[in-house]
């Protein structure tokens, strides 16, 4: 998020006039910031330093006598771990499938919601609902629906004679990945839609009017007016959804538990596993820092790509 703001800030001219005189206003400012900074600092500075310390020491709970400094040994362990390739692959596959799916869903629904017809009103109320539910609930619902013995989806497909035998949605590695993306779109798509709708609403009506006078078709309007003007909200959704997808945990934990054959075991699942199953706090913290670093690189990459394009 930080960098989104930094970017938008950089792209803008400085605010108008500022009232001079630091004294009282600065004190007021510090007082108002204090509670927020205190809470956030207490729960981020200390934990981050603590986690950094753990990541540089041997912290294996089953070896309580030994906490020696290992330098970057834990990071090396993570790079040599059995799960790195599998989990990075699974995470990339999940991000590359779910983020575009969420964005396309969000954009289509937003365009629909932006139309002047009665259906838009109904849809606008309904579409937000899945997003309001805890991911745990989404996971429970989808796992149940997709169960091959008593799940309702297979039941319907069989009654309609579309399939003869139940489809094991969550037991086939490829299908399980797709199922997870479905659940993710269901849960995250609504927010993307509302965000993009807000972006669409912010486009002044005159912009379209001028284009229509010029005789442009809907595709030309969409391609040359709507899409470029939606760039900022799209980028925001893109970054937000990338982060959400890359650290998805609850949904996977409930729906597939990482299986089958690690097809849905994402890196966040292994960060959890290192700490709570292998009780290796050192490796777990190292992995968490690596995930954070990767996220940072991705976000900076997005922003750079955007800047390059806007300079073209």
């Amino acid at each position, binding site marked *: 998020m930080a960098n989104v703001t930094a970017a938008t800030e950089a792209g803008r001219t400085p605010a108008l006039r500022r009232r001079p005189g630091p004294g009282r206003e600065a004190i007021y400012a510090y007082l108002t910031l204090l509670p927020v900074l205190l809470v956030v600092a207490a729960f981020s500075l200390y934990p981050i330093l603590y986690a950094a310390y753990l990541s540089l020491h041997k912290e294996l709970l089953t070896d309580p006598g030994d906490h020696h400094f290992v330098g970057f040994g834990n990071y090396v362990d993570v790079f040599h771990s059995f799960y790195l390739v599998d989990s990075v692959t699974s995470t990339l596959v999940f991000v590359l499938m779910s983020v575009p799916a969420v964005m396309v869903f969000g954009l289509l629904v937003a365009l629909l919601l932006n139309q002047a017809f009665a259906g838009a009103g109904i849809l606008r109320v309904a579409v937000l609902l*899945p997003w309001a539910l805890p991911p745990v609930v989404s996971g429970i619902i989808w796992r149940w629906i997709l169960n091959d013995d008593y799940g309702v989806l297979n039941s319907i497909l069989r009654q309609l004679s579309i399939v003869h035998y139940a489809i094991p949605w969550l037991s086939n590695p490829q299908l399980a990945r797709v199922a997870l993306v479905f659940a993710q779109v269901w849960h995250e798509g609504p927010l993307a839609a509302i965000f993009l709708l807000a*972006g669409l609403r912010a486009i002044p009506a005159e912009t379209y009017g001028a284009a229509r006078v010029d005789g442009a078709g809907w595709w030309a309007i969409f391609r040359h007016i709507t899409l470029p003007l939606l760039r900022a909200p799209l980028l925001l959704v893109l970054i937000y959804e990338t982060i959400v997808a890359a650290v998805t945990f609850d949904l996977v934990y409930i729906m597939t538990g990482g299986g089958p054959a690690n097809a849905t075991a994402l890196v966040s699942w292994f960060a959890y596993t290192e700490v709570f199953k292998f009780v290796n706090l050192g490796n777990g913290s190292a992995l968490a820092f690596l995930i954070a670093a990767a996220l940072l690189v991705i976000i900076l990459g997005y922003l750079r790509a955007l800047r390059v394009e806007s300079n073209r």
Partner: protein
Amino acid sequence: MTSARRKLLQKGGLWAATVVVLFFVLAPMLWILDSSFQGENELLTRPSHLLPQQPTVGNFDYIFTGAIPRSFEVTGTLRSRISQEAREVPQALENSIIVAVAVTIANAVLGALAAYSFARLRFAGKTLAFNFLLGSRLLPAIAVAIPYYAIINAANLLDTYTGLILVDLTFTLPFTVWFLRDHFRALPEEIEEAALIDGCGRLQVLFRIVLPLAAPGLVAAGAFAFMFSYNEFLFALLLTQTIKSQTLPVILASVATNPDASLALTAASVVLAMVPPLLFALGFQRFLARGLVAALGRT
């Protein structure tokens, strides 16, 4: 093609798309609602009954009164397993709402105060403080799970609302501050200037002028904070110990995955858990959309 026919076709297409999206969005929730009125036996029949053939409120009755549903009826000395945790859903509902409301209010008050200063005032260390707030959210939550547990434990706040509220605040405040700051900046500065010249303090300006103007944004930020704390699972799991403070996601996970889980009671519990966020989303969706429009309007 005549323009009237074209319009009709267009309208038909829009409605068809709406129905498809509505089905995708609503069907899973409706199926759970439907299931919550079926008995355990009926849920296990194949093919599934799309509508309950022997509708029952027994599952809800059990959650609120402890009366064992008919489908679990005792025969012999052994009764079919039943998720006893389901009985804790009402209390967990209360806990979740208390925590979420407290986090929401704290976000609105503390977040607005800080965001306004970030939006309008000049002071040393501003950029640093702001980037620190947002940067604090980059580390995956799992990385700080054990440190969080240690802090909350050391402060004697395990199994309390306060502990949960503090942690939820850490996750929500940075977003609220960022969101409101941009929101405040988008407001015309002239009115504030005039009020300041009239001798109003910054605090008065904030409460009398800025907040009324920014109400939709405030509601949107509050809604995000509410949803986040209502839905948060990992830390609620680690930091709560008893039903004194356990929130709904914790109890739901327990109902759904314990060895004595029953599908019917899971469905009824999920339905109850869905009520507050759905009411919330329904009640505030207009503000939410408006708040977002206002926040993004300047881009």
